[in-house]
């Protein structure tokens, strides 16, 4: 008797997408469990699921193809960056320059401290600078997501969002400069070392401006119908990401600039649902799960000392300037502690910059890059918890109703 064709053959041949779908369901359930029983942020659950089931953990789910992973992460990150930018009021820096000084000092100290540490570990100058630039980042994704989820409002929340946006700008620019120097060390003429970052900044901001103005026009005519609106927004974000990549600009910078410019030009207050609606929220779940799946802890054992030092020194370099300038900038010590701690998380932006460096310089990807990846994994896992702790500590989350 022949095996009937309408019954599947053993072993079953399953589309790899099934595992990812399964991971998503588990991620969401785990996220709900964490909120309900441990009062932890949901994204910890999403990331953990990816981490546990993926290649870095139990290995139940095969590695995601890099192109698909990148598509998900760039789109979701694009949404979160645009969301972050549209919440940040740049005019505040003029009214309270102490916040600008705090941000510059904090980013500068982080860069200097990490650069110094790596030089001490005998890392080449340009490479040390690239890693130090990445260390400046304060995950915009974790920030936007945790603030939205905890429904926090207040001075620490607003400063956190503003400083995360600024750190993202510093990091992308410094990273591009450092990579240019890495190329310089590899023997590329110095004119390009100057011209490349200039092209990057001007081009990305122009693209962001174009995006912002177009979005504003469309939004004014379409109104707030969520479905139409999120469809157009996601389409535009995808287009902007692809255009930015094609022109070798920074999608990160372009979408953040788009949000900031929209907010800057806006005459009337405008509120959007978190992540611009439920479709955006789904992408956010996807991104954090995908980040967990892509997590790479293979460099941890070998570089444990360096990884720990990177985390500790970065934490101190971020915390101290915030504490030092707290009273000038108009917050109390408790708030400054909360703000400093909440500046810790790293995730998608750092991850993308690290991967980009690794692609350009394979030796980096196989060496120091792995240590940096371990740092990012640890700070992506603990980051949301630290942000939530900070916001609670600053009393900016809603009170329990008796």
């Amino acid at each position, binding site marked *: 008797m022949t095996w009937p064709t309408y019954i599947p053959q053993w072993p079953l041949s399953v589309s790899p997408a099934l595992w990812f779908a399964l991971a998503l369901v588990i991620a969401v359930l785990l996220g709900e469990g964490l909120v309900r029983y441990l009062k932890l942020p949901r994204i910890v659950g999403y990331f953990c699921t990816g981490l546990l089931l993926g290649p870095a953990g139990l290995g139940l789910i095969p590695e995601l193809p890099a192109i698909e992973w990148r598509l998900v992460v760039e789109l979701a990150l694009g949404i979160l960056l645009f969301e972050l930018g549209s919440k940040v*009021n740049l005019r505040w820096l003029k009214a*309270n320059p102490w916040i600008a000084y705090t941000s510059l000092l904090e980013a500068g100290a982080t860069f200097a401290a990490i650069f110094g540490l790596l030089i001490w570990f005998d890392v080449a100058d340009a490479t040390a600078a690239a890693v130090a630039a990445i260390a400046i980042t304060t995950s915009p994704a974790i920030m936007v997501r945790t603030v939205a989820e905890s429904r926090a*409002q*207040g*001075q620490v929340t607003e400063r956190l969002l503003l400083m995360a946006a600024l750190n993202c700008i510093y990091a992308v620019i410094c990273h591009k400069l450092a990579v240019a120097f890495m190329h310089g060390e590899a023997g590329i003429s110095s004119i390009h070392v100057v011209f490349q970052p200039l092209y990057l900044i001007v081009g990305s901001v122009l693209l962001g401006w174009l995006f912002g103005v177009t979005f504003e026009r469309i939004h004014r005519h379409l109104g707030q119908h969520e479905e139409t609106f999120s469809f157009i927004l996601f389409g535009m974000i995808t287009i902007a990401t692809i255009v930015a990549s094609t022109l070798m600009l920074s999608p990160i910078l372009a979408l953040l600039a788009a949000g900031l410019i929209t907010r800057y030009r806006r005459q*009337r207050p405008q509120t959007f649902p978190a992540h611009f609606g439920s479709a955006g929220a789904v992408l956010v779940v996807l991104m954090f799960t995908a980040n967990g799946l892509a997590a790479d802890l293979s460099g941890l054992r070998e570089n444990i000392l360096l990884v720990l030092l990177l985390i500790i020194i970065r934490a101190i370099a971020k915390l101290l300037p915030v504490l030092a300038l707290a009273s000038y900038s*108009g917050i109390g010590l408790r708030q400054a502690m909360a703000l400093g701690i909440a500046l810790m998380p790293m995730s998608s932006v750092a991850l993308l910059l690290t991967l980009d460096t690794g692609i350009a310089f394979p030796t980096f990807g196989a060496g120091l890059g792995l240590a940096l990846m371990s740092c990012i994994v640890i700070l992506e896992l603990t980051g949301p918890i630290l942000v939530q702790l900070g916001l609670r500590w600053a009393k900016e989350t809603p009170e329990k109703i008796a």
Partner: protein
Amino acid sequence: MSLIPFAPSRPLSIGVELELQLLSCNDYNLVSSAPDILRQIAKHNHPGKVKPEITRSMIEINTSVQYGYGALVNELRSLRDTVTNAGHFLNLAIAGGGTHPFQHWSEQKIYDAPRFNYLSDLYGYLAKQFTVFGQHVHIGCSGPDEALYLMHKLSHYIPHFIALSAASPFVQGHDTGFSSTRLNSVLTFPMSGRAPFVLNWEDFEQFFDRMVSTGVVKSMKDFYWDIRPQPEFGTIEIRVCDTPLTIEIAAAIACYIQTMSSYIMTKQSAEPEEDDYLVYTFNRFQACRFGLEGVFIDPLTNKQRSLREDITNMLTSIADHTKELQAEEAMECIREILAEGNGASWLRKTYEREHHLNNVMQQQADLWMGN
């Protein structure tokens, strides 16, 4: 604890307290930043006082003792600028108005101070729901009996003050149809309403002692009456006004009350009677519900007029006192309110034009901060 003696004060001197809204510049919802802005304000010298209020999205500004409209407006302007500058520094907007149009009471947080924690424990959700914003006006009195006399006489005109200052038509995202909804929040408190009908200070002290001995109150602060004597300052305190949309209106209403007090204290008229209060709650309701269009019933003559008409007549009656107190500019402002409408009608017009309460709140804040 017995009542403290009635302090001496200059008759007809005025003091103004305004409760203000602290807003986020992103969505113009209330934001619990009172500790931050108070810390910032404390770094600079300013006239008067800036104090916390029951929830952290409110602050209160107090003027010092004033006599004339000019000086009162100047002090209020200076206080406004102090608060506005601190607001800019912290990315906060500040606004007048009696209610926030779309805040949710459960999102408000109690300001951490013993008295506010006590009130929150006692009143439960009423304490958070009390995130409404009022103007209190103190009028100096030559003595305690005069204070009680003025209090009962002024009670009659409470609807005037409500209708002129009314600026709270929107609550929890909707137009209520009221001009002032703020007083509905006050009415839920057990010690609200009007003061007992007592005409001399000894009787008032007896009443107070009796209330203290029942354990219901500890000090004058526990009475949430529309007008209450404040022996500590030697004043009576009129508490029915919404915080107006600008400090100029706030000063004008304070001077209107001052001028009317001057008129009452010099005019020969019948002693206050308990019967004067027969229509009190009806008149009060009409003012809250319909503002200047509300019906005002004179308990002495039973005549009915609109509040607009009654205030217009009153402006004529007190003209001599206006001159004497140099309050012409203030009365001009009152006439403008009669002609163009109170804060509630400004808010409704703005909403009709803007369609979003966030935008209304933004313009309300711009108006108050003088942007």
